[in-house]
């Protein structure tokens, strides 16, 4: 276990360097969105005021310092209320297009991403698990065939296609649901809660369908695998009822890999569903990233994608720990 932890740190450092280097090569220009009437000399001035003329290593180490030392310190201060050193003059990673600290931007975007993507993940799991179990237990039955077909369709049709079709049907033709997500909406009573539900239905469903499709296939395979193991045969031979076998033994054992799978998928909740956020205008983390890429907001894109990497590594570790915890046979050297 500690060995894995030990490798995580160099991995992250390599990733941070690679991301920084690749982004540094990007030919984008943060001044390209300015009105064309602004002459090129003025654009040059703006570029210089962003520090674009500094050499690569200077910018990289500056970013490292800001990201790994200054930002965590700020977070600690924010949470505990303590004052550590000179927090006023501490430089922060700042977005080029809004001049705001990247971390603040991310915190501002997190709620809607967590709500929409997180909820869709939960809904997806709740749909997927029973379907997967029943499909496996009644392999090749009508239920299994239909379930298989639907989940195949689920991960074969791109989310931007399903999303667009839903907007046309439910917002344009029927007028039941809003096509945009209002991030400023505050839930304070039942009607406003209902508004919140309505604006979340479509993005959540589109994503949940996609998640459920993949997970139910995985669950089905896992149960099938267990059903064919010797202990099930023994149990059957002993005359135990199918239902009892399923509930008592198979289910528990086949959930093991699925739980790991679910843990591995958690980072996607934070990274946001870029395409779905784009379609329904849930201005969350995914949309922030796309906006950053389009406006050449290098510090923002660097920090965001690195944060994604941190999440992935962390949850990989977590998945390992969960697996080891649930299945005592697995031991890490």
């Amino acid at each position: 276990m500690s060995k894995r932890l030990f490798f995580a740190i160099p991995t992250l450092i390599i990733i941070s360097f690679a991301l920084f280097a690749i982004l540094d090569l990007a030919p984008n220009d943060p001044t390209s969105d300015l009105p064309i009437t602004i002459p090129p000399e003025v654009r040059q001035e703006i570029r210089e005021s962003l520090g674009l003329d500094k050499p690569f290593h200077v910018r990289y180490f500056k970013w490292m310092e800001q990201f790994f030392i200054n930002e965590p310190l700020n977070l600690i201060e924010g949470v505990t209320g303590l004052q550590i050193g000179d927090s006023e003059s501490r430089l922060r990673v700042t977005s080029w297009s809004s001049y705001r600290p990247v971390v603040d931007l991310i915190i501002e975007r997190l709620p809607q991403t967590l709500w929409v993507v997180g909820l869709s993940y939960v809904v997806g799991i709740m749909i997927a698990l029973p379907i997967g179990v029943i499909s496996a237990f009644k392999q090749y039955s009508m239920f299994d065939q239909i379930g298989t077909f639907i989940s195949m369709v689920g991960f074969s049709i791109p989310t931007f296609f399903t999303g667009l079709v839903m907007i046309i049907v439910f917002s344009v033709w029927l007028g039941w649901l809003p096509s945009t997500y209002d991030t400023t909406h505050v839930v304070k009573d039942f009607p406003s809660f209902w508004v919140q539900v309505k604006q979340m239905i479509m993005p959540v469903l589109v994503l949940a369908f996609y998640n459920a499709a993949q997970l139910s296939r995985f669950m089905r395979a896992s149960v099938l695998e267990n059903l064919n193991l010797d202990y099930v045969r023994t149990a059957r031979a002993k005359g135990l009822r199918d239902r009892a076998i399923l509930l008592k033994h198979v289910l528990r054992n086949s959930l093991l890999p699925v739980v790991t799978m679910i843990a591995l998928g958690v980072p996607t909740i934070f990274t946001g569903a870029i395409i779905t956020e784009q379609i329904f205008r849930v201005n969350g983390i995914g949309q922030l990233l796309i906006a950053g890429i389009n406006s050449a907001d290098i510090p923002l894109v660097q920090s965001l994608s690195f944060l994604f990497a941190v999440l992935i590594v962390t949850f990989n570790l977590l998945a390992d720990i969960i697996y080891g915890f649930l299945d005592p046979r697995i031991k890490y050297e």
Partner: protein
Amino acid sequence: MKVEKLAQANQSIQEAREHPSPWMIVWIALRNHKGAMVGAGVFTVIVLGVLLGPFIYTVDPQFTDIEARNLGMSWQHPLGTDNYGQDMLARLLWGGRTAIAVGFAAMFLSLGLGTTIGLIAGYYKRLDGLLMRLTDLFLALPLLPLLLVIILVFREPLDELFPGNPEIGTFLLIVFVIGITSWMQTARIVRSETLALKEREFVLAATSIGTSGPHIITTHILPNILSPIMVSATLGVASAIITESALSFLGLGFPPDFPTWGRLLYDGANFMEIAPARVIWPGLAISLTVLSVNYIGDALRDAIDPRVRNQ
């Protein structure tokens, strides 16, 4: 002398092996799996259609006919035209070529990388740790942002390398990017299969008579792990096609004047209400292709994994 011995050993190994040939597995899997049969049929039709279609239906997909904009289905334009009067059927056929070419090329690249790395890591214990750390590293990369950024960085310089054919540069770039970001699962599977095979009698036998490592890998191990590789291959094709269309949807795929299914869907999205066909055809094409490939992959997986096979 040595060669003879080797051949003998080989033969006995062949006989001793209880595995049927991978192609047999594919055939058995498909034959027993209705969905897979249909899938294989649909996929063959689509591939043949986009390969041969443009020879039969010779309309230029780039030709703009201002008089014939936004038309519905007709004999002259079987699938209608778009808002520049370009023929939709021609665009769909050409777009399919690109989509399927991207799908296969990216799959081969990712499979090649994954298999090589998996084999080496599984066979040579010395390299195992290093290669698996590399795999973990790639798994930790945030893929979609990375894809977007790489395309942004390298598209223009690549265009310069192929003056007059910007789509070649984009094609290589997209294939490369999808390929190098999707080989990790294959590598893991191949490695674990290799680790298991390494302990089997026929491999031990070959090693004991002094067969070289690369030779064992290519003649003994590789043929025996073809089945899981084929499963990865089907999944690879499917996900590459979807990734390409997603990139096109975010405006970072092929140039706008170059038809691909993803691009057609993206361009047609706004016209959904005026001309639903512009969304439905490319959407169906993508979905059907991916669906049929996934069905084949599913059947293969069932077939090679005896534990999942019918009780």
